[in-house]
Structure formats: structure tokens, C-alpha cells
């Protein structure tokens, strides 16, 4: 505020007119050397007319982003839920995923700001954290394609930090991209994992071609035989070979339109895909549940190889100390987890059904007096004038929820507050403890 006043007095004549005040605003913006006035910027950059649309009576009103967002979310939920029947879904909960990052010449294109590679690296980091949040027992490895060769950036591991650190290092783009080399490399690594794990590859492809040493169709058949599910997210355009690869192996292929779309497509791969039953052999995996070591105990931790005081966990089989869970004991190889890690995956096994939209005619019915507020957040479901807005209802407990609660419940909470709050509608779920 002080600066503006200062400039007003010091700039002398011609700055007091109302039309000129926006130029002062522009002076306040640091680093904006474009030379456009603020009112000009509104046409060049912001395009405010694009956020208007016509309603039924021909009047202009701003786009209601909320209902559009909700409609997109409902389409997503429906497509996810329709592929599973009323029976409990089988999902691949123990996943071994390789992320293949294309660092060829095409990744230095600047259609994604600042460059495709930078955008990809940023979103992979977010994806890795989300992935380990939803699949704590799974492992990720990173592979890069550069100069026609595929190289392993990080090995399969269950801790997000090592992968994120590798991504933050210097990544340079050059040369051609080779899909076959990447698939061969990943195929070699994934053949070594235990048989109960689900093998997956996610390729983030920027190039429009692939430069291969041999017959890529053979490689694709090999991957199909080894039951590796390959998915591709393209950043440039749809390519036949990627489409073919995904169809053969049962993965999904999508092409990103812009950065936010890319993020959405990437995060769709975080929840476990519906398991194709023959792909992984069911097995009993031996796991340990370590206790937290007492405070003040000094021991040498097996991950950092140095003495540490207190904290940490003790492997129940060989009594070695580990710093964090979930991990594999370095001494005896036992997988160490805690019960919350397993519990994180339970919501994939017991999902809540999508809520049904309540038709407005039912809401206007004077006999339906039950819901004037969303059951979850108590937000009023009436807009001023006592007219009801769009809301949804749970098919089991019939409680009404607002659109935002619907999204929150299905994407994060995984509990229907209505079903959980009434005992007679409770369904017995997994009993433990």
C-alpha cells in the first residue's frame, strides 16, 4: 500500500486518471516485462469470455465448475464400478511396478511448461507418494530411455525416498527412444520377482516413434506370456504400437492433453487395477510384525549401519533393528509390516457403492421432508428461495449427501457416514483384533 502511494505522488502528472490506475498495478507486478496493461492482459491471457456459457433461457452465466467436476467424477466412478459385479473385487494388491520415463529428444519439447521432462518428473514424484500411500506392500522401480538405450535408474524398492532422490537429480534428454529395449530390460527384471506379485509397467512416452534393434512384436508377445501388464501414457499423440502393446497385455493407453490432464491420468494408475485372476498365483507370504523398540535402547541399525538410540523396530526373527516400516529385513529377508499397512489396502477389497443421484422431482415432493442438510457435513441442501440443489443418496442407508461430500467419501474416506452411523444397516466386515 505504501509503495503505491509513494509512486502516485512521485510519478507526477497523468497518473491520477482512473484509466491509468491499472498501469500502477502493473508496476507492482514484479517480473512482468510484457508491457501489456492489465486490461489488455485480460483479453490476451485470461480470456474471461471462455468461462461463460448460455443457460436454457439464453442468458449468460459463468460456467458452474462444480457440477462439471462432479459429472466427470461420476463418470470415472461408474466406469470403475461397472467392471466389477456385486461380488467382492479381486484386485492386485501386491504390485511390482516399473515406471519407464522417456528421456529422448522429444522430451525436451516445451509444449508442457517448462519442458515435458520437467513436468513428468514433478508428477512422477507425486504419483510415487500416492502409490505407496495406497499400496504399502508394493514396490516401484524407475527406468529411463535415452539415446536408444534403456537404463535402470533405481531398483525395485518399497521406500519412496530413494526414487524421489533419483528423480530430482540431473536428467538430460537426448537421442531416440526405443520401446523394445525398455520392454526387454523390464521383462528381465520382472521375471525375478515372486510369483504372487502383480507385474506392471507404466511407460510415459513423449516420442512419436521407436527405434528398435529387433522385432518389437516378439517382445510384446514375451511380455504377454510373462503376464506383465503394460500401460502407456502418451504426451504427444496416439501411436499404434503403444495401443497394440496395451491391448495385448491388458493395460490402458491414454494420451494427455495438458498438464492437469496428465496428472489425472497418472494418478489413475495409483489404485490397484482389477486383477486378472490367472496373472498372479495366490500364495501365503510370511511376514513379520515388529514391535517398536523401547526408548533409550542403543543398537546398530541394519539400514544405515550406525548406532542409534531408541526408536526403530526389531525384526521378530533375527532381532535386527530397522528404522522404518514397511521394509525387508536386511539380515534375514523377512518382510516387515505393521497392521495399519495392511489396513490401508482393505478399502480396495470392501469398496462403497457409488451414490445415486436424487432426482429433483423427488426433492420437490412435500412428503420428502427428511433431508434439508447433507448428512455428512450438515451443509444446507437448499439454495436461497427454498429450492433444493442437486444431491446424492447412498443406496444402502438412503441418507442424502452434497456433491462435495460424495467426492470426498469415495476418493478419500471410503466409509459412508450414513451406513456407519446406523447399527441396523451395518454390514459385518473383516473382523480383526
Amino acid at each position, binding site marked *: 500500500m505504501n509503495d503505491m502511494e509513494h509512486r502516485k505522488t512521485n510519478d507526477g502528472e497523468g497518473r491520477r486518471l482512473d484509466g491509468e490506475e491499472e498501469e500502477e498495478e502493473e508496476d507492482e507486478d514484479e517480473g512482468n516485462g510484457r508491457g501489456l496493461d492489465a486490461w489488455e492482459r485480460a483479453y490476451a491471457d485470461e480470456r474471461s469470455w471462455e468461462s461463460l456459457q448460455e443457460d436454457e433461457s439464453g442468458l449468460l452465466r459463468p460456467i458452474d465448475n462444480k457440477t462439471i467436476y462432479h459429472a466427470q467424477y461420476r463418470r470415472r466412478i461408474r466406469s470403475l464400478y461397472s467392471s466389477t459385479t456385486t461380488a467382492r473385487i*479381486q484386485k492386485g494388491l501386491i504390485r511390482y511396478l516399473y515406471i519407464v520415463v522417456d528421456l529422448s529428444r522429444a522430451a525436451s519439447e516445451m509444449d508442457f511448461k517448462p519442458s515435458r521432462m520437467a513436468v513428468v518428473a514433478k508428477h512422477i514424484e507425486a504419483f510415487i507418494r500416492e502409490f505407496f500411500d495406497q499400496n504399502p506392500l508394493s514396490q516401484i522401480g524407475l527406468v529411463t530411455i535415452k539415446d536408444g538405450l534403456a537404463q535402470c535408474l533405481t531398483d525395485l524398492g518399497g521406500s519412496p525416498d530413494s526414487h524421489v532422490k533419483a528423480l530430482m537429480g540431473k536428467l538430460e534428454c537426448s537421442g531416440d527412444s526405443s520401446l523394445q529395449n525398455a520392454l526387454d530390460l523390464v521383462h528381465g527384471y520382472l521375471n525375478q520377482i515372486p510369483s504372487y506379485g502383480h507385474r506392471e509397467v507404466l511407460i510415459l512416452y513423449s516420442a512419436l516413434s521407436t527405434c528398435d534393434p529387433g522385432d518389437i512384436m516378439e517382445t510384446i508377445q514375451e511380455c504377454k506370456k510373462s503376464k506383465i501388464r503394460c500401460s502407456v501414457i502418451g504426451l504427444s499423440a496416439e501411436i499404434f504400437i503403444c495401443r497394440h502393446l496395451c491391448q495385448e497385455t491388458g493395460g490402458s493407453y491414454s494420451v494427455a492433453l495438458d498438464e492437469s490432464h496428465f496428472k489425472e491420468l497418472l494418478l489413475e494408475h495409483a489404485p490397484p487395477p482389477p486383477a486378472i485372476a490367472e496373472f498372479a498365483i495366490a500364495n501365503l507370504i510370511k511376514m513379520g510384525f515388529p514391535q517398536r523398540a523401547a526408548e533409550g535402547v542403543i543398537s546398530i541399525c541394519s539400514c544405515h549401519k550406525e548406532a542409534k538410540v531408541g526408536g526403530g523396530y526389531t525384526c521378530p526373527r533375527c532381532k535386527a533393528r530397522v528404522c522404518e516400516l514397511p521394509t525387508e529385513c536386511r539380515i534375514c529377508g523377512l518382510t516387515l509390516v505393521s497392521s495399519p499397512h495392511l489396513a490401508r489396502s482393505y478399502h480396495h477389497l470392501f469398496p462403497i457403492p457409488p451414490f445415486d443421484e436424487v432426482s429433483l422431482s423427488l426433492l420437490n415432493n412435500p412428503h420428502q421432508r427428511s433431508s434439508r442438510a447433507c448428512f455428512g457435513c450438515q451443509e444446507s441442501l437448499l439454495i436461497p428461495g427454498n429450492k433444493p440443489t442437486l444431491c446424492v443418496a447412498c443406496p444402502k442407508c438412503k441418507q442424502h449427501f452434497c456433491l462435495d461430500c460424495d467426492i470426498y467419501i469415495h476418493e478419500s474416506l471410503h*466409509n*459412508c457416514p450414513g451406513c456407519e452411523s446406523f447399527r441396523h444397516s451395518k454390514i459385518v466386515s473383516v473382523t480383526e483384533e
Partner: protein
Amino acid sequence: MGRSAVMAPVPSKLYSDDVSLLVVLLDTNPFFWSTASLPFSKFLSHVLAFLNSILLINQLNQVVVIATGCNSCNFIFDSSSVPANPNLENGRMPALCSNLLQKLEEFVTGDEKLSKEVLAAGIGSSLLSGSLSMALCYIQRVFRTGPLHPQPRILCLQGSPDGPEQYVAVMNAIFSAQRSMVPIDSCVIGAQHSAFLQQASYITGGVYLKPQQLDGLFQYLSTVFATDLHSRRFLQLPKPAGVDFRASCFCHKNTIDMGYICSVCLSIFCKHHKKCSTCGSVFGQAQSDGNSATDRKRKTPET
């Protein structure tokens, strides 16, 4: 207690980082309170004094109370909404208390009526998962009001024992709270420790306390649970000790150190089995389509 209507936007300099939104989950399970050492009326007087003190600490603090019954849960009190009946302030009690008490009375009567309709087997636990879910939905609504909002946290005043059938729902709520960075504090009034609440407080970074002398409950509440999140690092609060993260096996419900996990449904067993009792997968063999068809006919926990 004249409060303005729902959450009008306030200039940023008023929302400093010590403004809190406290959501209290009050256990009203009559099966527990009939045998508790502290009578419910005394308990309520401690809690009401505590709620008043929260509202006095900072003018912008907000308190929401949700009752956890044994057959239902509901919102009882919201300090940011206009009091429905200002005539209740009769000079002996401020309007806050009388509003809350009236709503609580209605809730408990309603809850009891539901008891008669439901054939409750093995009851004894209250619906913690329900009230946690409602609290989290309300907190999401507060987050949606924009970048200026009070810091939310949840305080569970729980006496009833944990209901094992709620394990998955409670864990889902805990993980969602962890993601939204909402700490869950627990004050356990009952006779035994609550494993659910210990895990909840540990995972979300809240405080777990089982007061030893319930007569002084107000003292515990106001010294341990009244501070806002920002000021907590200046205090010596009870540290989590002895949180047991070991799992129980599905077959005997014993706590185990090492066990076997079904790779399909993550059920825990203490010894080697040929077949998983939860999902029916046969171990060590590739599953054919025939097997999965019979699995679906088998009674699954979901249906």
C-alpha cells in the same frame, strides 16, 4: 453468546494460526454409562466447562459436538450456527449449555428407541466409525471455505470398548484424517485402553490419554487437550508409549509376531493353510476361471 451466522469471510489478520476448530465426539452409549465409575451428569459438567473454556481462549475458536450413540450418531452442537432458541437462556445456564443439553436429550431418547427395534448381539460398543466419518466430512467442508480457516482437530471422549466389526471403517477414517492432517486426540474414560484410539492418535499425530482420576477430568481436559496445534510444541504432552501395531490372526484372534498373509485378500494367518478362508484362493496354484466362479458363490464378507 451472540455469534454471527455461518462462517463469514474474515480478513486474514484475524485468522492467526492459533485459531482452532474442535470437533468433540461424545460417547453416550447407555450400556457403558450405566456401569461407569463417573456418573454421566458429572461427566457432562466437566465437558461443558471445558467447551466453554475453549470458546473463551480465542474469540474465533469453534466447537462442534457429535454424539456417538450405540445405534446412531448425530450432530449435537455447532458454536458457529445461530442458536435456535435464545429463550432458553434462563439466567441459570448460558444458552450454549442449554442448547447442547436439549439436543443431547433428544438424541439419547432417539437412540434408545432404536435400541428396542434392533436385536443387538454382542453390543457394548458405540459407533465410533460413524461419528469419525461425520466429523471428517464436516472438517472437509471447513477446508472448502477457502484458505482462511481455523485449524481443525478431533477429540474423542470414549468410554465404550472397541467394536472389532468397525476395524476397517475406523482405519479408513484414520488414514483419511492423516492425509488431511487432522490430529485425532483421545481421552479414554472407560476401564480399559482402546487399541483403535491408540493407533488413531499415533498415526495422526494426536494425543492419547487415559486419565487416572476421573473426578478431575476437567483438569486433564484443560491442560492436555485445550491448546491449539501451533502451541503444542511448547508443551510437554503425554507421549505415545507402547502402541502395539502387531496384528491378530484371523483364525484365533491371537496377537502374532510373525504370520502368513494371503496375497489376494491380505488376511492374516498364524500357520500355513492350504486355502484362504476369507477369499477362498487356493495357495500355490494358478487360479483358473472355474475357481473364481465358485469363489463368488461362497458367502463373502461384503454381502
